[in-house]
Every structure is written in structure tokens, then in C-alpha cells.
């Protein structure tokens, strides 16, 4: 024991070789916990531990003016530390503090419970392996969920009574109608920006009229539908996960099951069907507004009148481009609805899980939309469209 620290506001130490008397005094409360802990650490600093330790120590609590649970825990720690070196007894506990100190000292000082940590080179490997395994497993689960949904969807064709019309219409309103503002605005701006930027580049070759070809083809084939799908994944896919996930947390989904209602029928199919209907419509609407943006920009910047633009557009851009874009919409709708609902139903435990599932659903949906878009591009090129 470091006898150099013999006296301060909280502890005073005196004694001869065989016996030490340690007086605890002052306010052992949480406000002073830091200072008391510092004192303790100084008293038991390693450099002084080998000094001639006395055989018995008395911890006298008679000087304590106030004590709270934090103080009591510190007294227990103190007694434990002293006890490591020699025999320690606790005396002179004021009556007022006795019940509290009894409560604390009768629960033994808890042992450390840290989870075992692996060495870094193993943990890197095991985390990588786990991540790969999780990715594969979640993909397999998503596929099996898709299968389940498709079976229920096919089943509802033969048994149309199961289809819930009102939720479908409600979902169409929420995911379709109310998305028109943002989808329209973004498509319009992108269409305008494409013409604006394309014209600058093409003007270098004196080919600025071809900006209409470029803008028309890229918007109809790719950008219109892709932008719409990404906006809807962020806007409605996340909402699906959050709605269904909070219902899971609230045990509403379990309640549904006990009432004999299949959550797939009640929650997933209306959202899927609504999106299957709405996404192609939204994509069409995005195409129209994107071209409108292009027309406006061509008029302002290149002085091509809207009439001329449309005549040129009809001559140059075949309707195939439009169909190539729009045919992808139902597939993207299925991806977004499936990811959103699947992640929602997988929520368990806490609000934290709800948040991470929502993130996952959006990331997964956008990723799969882009992957499928690439596959479609390869497919259409190879069949010569």
C-alpha cells in the first residue's frame, strides 16, 4: 500500500507494521466518485504494492457523512482491494448507511464477463466467411419468399375472392398517385439536363440535332424506367418494410395468423399488385415528362420549336425503344415489392432491427433493379432490339 497518500478528503491511513487503520470519511457520493477512485488507484499503485504490507487492516466507515449506492460500491471495491493484500474488516458503519451498505456488500462483486475475442487474423477470415454465407443465405431466402408470393398470387387467380381490392386501391394511391410529383419533377429535369449537356458536346461536331435521338433513346430505353424504379424503391420499398416491420414488432402479424389471415395475402399481395400496376404507368408518365423537359430545353437552347422536335422525334425514334423500357417496369415492380415486404416480415426484436431492415430493403431493391436492367440490356441487344 502506498502510504505516501495518507490523507485526503475521503481517506486517511494510519497504523504500524502489523495493523493499518483506514478511515473512510466525507461524502462518498457519485459526484465524488471520480476523485475517490483516483485516491484508491493511487493507494494501490503497483510500485508500492510490495512494500511491507501489514497483516490486518481495518476499514473504518465512521467518518462517512453521506453515502449513496455509488459510494457503497466504491466501499466494496475498496474493501476488495485491501483484501487482496491482507485481511480486511469493515467497522463503524453509521446506522443511517447500514441498510444500503448491506444491500451492496451482500451482492458479491460481479466478475468480468467479456465475450471471447478471436485473434484478428482469424476474425477477418471468419467475418468474411460469415458475410459471404449471409449474402448467399439471404439471396436464397429472398428467392424462396418470391416463390411463396408467386404461389399465393397464382392461387388468387383461381380464387379471386381472396384478392383484397380496397387495400390494393389504397396502395395504388400511396405508391402511384402520390409519387407522381417527385417522379415527374425528376424526369423532367433529367430530360432537360440531357439535352442541355448533349447539345454542348454534339455542337462540337455540328451534330446538335442528334441530341434528340440521344435523349429520346436513352430516356425511353433506360433512364425513364430506371429513375422511376429507384425513386419508388426509396420511397415505397422503404415504406413497405417500415409498415410491415412495425406490425411484426407489434405482434399484429401474429394476430393475423391466429385469425386465419395469411400475411402474404393481406400485406404482401396488395402491395405487389398495386406496384405491378403503378410502376409501368409511372414509367410511361416519366417518359412523357422527360421528353417534355427535352422539348423545353431544345426550344430554349437550340431554338428547335416543339412542333419540329415532335416531327423529328416521330421520324427517328421507333416505338420499340418505348416498349423496351416499359416492359422492364413490372419486373422492377416485383423486385421492389418483394424486397420491401420480405425485409419487413423479417424484422424481429427491436426498433434497431427495423431501421437496418429498411436500409437493407432499399439497398437490395436498387441493386437488383440495376442488375436486372443490365441483364435486360444484354438480352435486348442480343435479340437485335
Amino acid at each position: 500500500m502506498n502510504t505516501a497518500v495518507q490523507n485526503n478528503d475521503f481517506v486517511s491511513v494510519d497504523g504500524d507494521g502489523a495493523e493499518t487503520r483506514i478511515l473512510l470519511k466525507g461524502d462518498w457520493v457519485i459526484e465524488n466518485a471520480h476523485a475517490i477512485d483516483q485516491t484508491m488507484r493511487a493507494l494501490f499503485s503497483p510500485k508500492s504494492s510490495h512494500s511491507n504490507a501489514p497483516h490486518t487492516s481495518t476499514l473504518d466507515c465512521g467518518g462517512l457523512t453521506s453515502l449513496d449506492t455509488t459510494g457503497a460500491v466504491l466501499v466494496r471495491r475498496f474493501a476488495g482491494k485491501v483484501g487482496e493484500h491482507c485481511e480486511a474488516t469493515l467497522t463503524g458503519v453509521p446506522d443511517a448507511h447500514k441498510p444500503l451498505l448491506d444491500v451492496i456488500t451482500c451482492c458479491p462483486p460481479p466478475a468480468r464477463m467479456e465475450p471471447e475475442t478471436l485473434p484478428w487474423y482469424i476474425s477477418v477470415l471468419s467475418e468474411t466467411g460469415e458475410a459471404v454465407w449471409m449474402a448467399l443465405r439471404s439471396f436464397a431466402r429472398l428467392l424462396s419468399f418470391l416463390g411463396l408470393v408467386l404461389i399465393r398470387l397464382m392461387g388468387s387467380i383461381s380464387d379471386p375472392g381472396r384478392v383484397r381490392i380496397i387495400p390494393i386501391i389504397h396502395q395504388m394511391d400511396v405508391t402511384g398517385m402520390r409519387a407522381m410529383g417527385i417522379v415527374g419533377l425528376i424526369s423532367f429535369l433529367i430530360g432537360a439536363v440531357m439535352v442541355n449537356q448533349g447539345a454542348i458536346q454534339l455542337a462540337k461536331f455540328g451534330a446538335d440535332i442528334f441530341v434528340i435521338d440521344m435523349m429520346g433513346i436513352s430516356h425511353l430505353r433506360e433512364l425513364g424506367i430506371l429513375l422511376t424504379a429507384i425513386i419508388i424503391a426509396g420511397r415505397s420499398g422503404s415504406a413497405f418494410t417500415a409498415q410491415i416491420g412495425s406490425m411484426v414488432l407489434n405482434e399484429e402479424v401474429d394476430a393475423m395468423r391466429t385469425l386465419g389471415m395469411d400475411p402474404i395475402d393481406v400485406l404482401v399481395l396488395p402491395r405487389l399488385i398495386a406496384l405491378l400496376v403503378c410502376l409501368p404507368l409511372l414509367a410511361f408518365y416519366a417518359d412523357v415528362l422527360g421528353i417534355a423537359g427535352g422539348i423545353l430545353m431544345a426550344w430554349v437552347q437550340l431554338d428547335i420549336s416543339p412542333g419540329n422536335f415532335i416531327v423529328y422525334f416521330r421520324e427517328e425514334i421507333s416505338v420499340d425503344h418505348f416498349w423496351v423500357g416499359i416492359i422492364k417496369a413490372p419486373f422492377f415492380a416485383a423486385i421492389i415489392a418483394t424486397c420491401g415486404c420480405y425485409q419487413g416480415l423479417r424484422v424481429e426484436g427491436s426498433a434497431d432491427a427495423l431501421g437496418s431492415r429498411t436500409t437493407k430493403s432499399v439497398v437490395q431493391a436498387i441493386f437488383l433493379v440495376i442488375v436486372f436492367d443490365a441483364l435486360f440490356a444484354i438480352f435486348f441487344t442480343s435479340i437485335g432490339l
Partner: protein
Amino acid sequence: MDDITQMPGTPALPDQQDAIIKVRGLKTAFGEHVVHENLDLDVKRGEILGIVGGSGSGKSVLLRTIIGLNKQASGTVEINGRNQSTLSRAEERSSRQDWGVLFQDGALFSSLTVAQNVQVPLREYYDLPLDVMDDLARSKITMAGLPLDAACMFPSDLSGGMRKRAALARSLALDPKVLFLDEPTAGLDPIGAAAFDGLVKDLSVSLGLTVFLVTHDLDTLYRVCDRVAVLGDKRILINAPLSDVVQFDHPWVKEYFGGPRARAAGIA
């Protein structure tokens, strides 16, 4: 009661002098709907006060108003001598340490383990070494009657009773003077409820706590409460030891304490 001037020389009545919570002329309203009007309530230091009242009589609203989660329309709430509506931000912060709240479902932070939950107020208010904080958290968890391996668990892994105990450990983290409990035994089985009642009683003795307890549980009233306040007709009808409350002449009180459940609890 405040306006009664003390005659010089007469000793102050303990009721008046040692109220740790003083509510005066409280009025709370949601829009047109008045919940409390002209409500006075005293909670004496060190006692366990049970609040009862019919559904919708505003027991939880009263609790939320006292702890400042609800703004009153008029009236004052004083906790430990501090008028809660005139505090500066710093005073408010320090006043928050005077009390702990146990919400009905525990309201534990779901992304933190039980031990981390208990440490949240410690981290917020004090700068303590990690090992002291761990020790403190585990002691509080033990005090709340939880096994130590619960310390590393997340709230979603705990049963309802354990969640309540974990939440109790958190509300005790800063050694509050007053503990507010909202329906502490709701949703617990009778054995768990009895154990929880016993725990509250023991802790109030060993930590010198004042307990403000909203409950429907007649057993709780019978077993742990020193006094019972009945909320009805937008005010406190009576605030007295249970034996007096049972005798009180009011239709709701008569029905409440005269019913078969009260008889089963051994009150009437």
C-alpha cells in the same frame, strides 16, 4: 394548504413541512377536455404513495405532468423544493437527477444491452472510469433482482418481468430521491408481481426512496403503499392510509374497495 400561516412557536406539521412533491392548483387539459382541475397533492419524503382511479381519470397524465412530459394549463409542481415550471435549463438538468421513472413497458433503449442501458444516465451526467461504471451497472442490476448474465442481454431477449427489473435498475442509476412507477405490476404474474412489490418496498427502505406509484393492483396497494391517493372528479378525492381510504364515502371508492377483488386482496 400553503396559505395557512404557521403560528409562531407551534411545531410544523410533518405533512406540510416534509412534502418532497407538492402539487398545487394543477389544471391539465387536452384541448377542450379538462383532465384535472384544481388538483392538490403532497407526497411525503420517504413514503410510498399509491395513486388509484378509474380508467381515464388521468393517473398517467398526472404522473407525466409531474415529471414534466406534459405541460400543465395552470398550477405548480414542486419536486424536492424546486418549482418545475420555472427552472432554467441547467437547473432542469440537475433536477432530473432527483427522480427516476419506470415506464409501463420499461422503455429500455432497444439497441443497448441491459448494462449499457443502466450506464446511459451515468455517462450522461458523470465522467467515471469504465471499470467503476461496469461495477456500478452490475450492482444496480443485482439490486433490481436480475441475474448477472442479464447484463449482456438486449431488452428484446428478456421476459416482461425481467424488462421491468432492468428498467428499474436504470431508473435507480443516479440514486434518485423519488421513484415514479407507472403500473409496475401490470402484465406480471401474481408471483412476479409480489416479488416486484417486495423489491420496491425493500429498495425504498435501503435507499431511502420516496415512491410515487400509479397502479390498478389492489395487492400492491395493500402490500407496499403507506398511503393511497384516489383520483376522481378531476382532483384528489382523498390522500390517506389505506384503512382510511376504504372507509371514505364516495361511490367510486366504495365500489373499488368493496368489490370481490378487493375482498380477495384482504382489504375490505
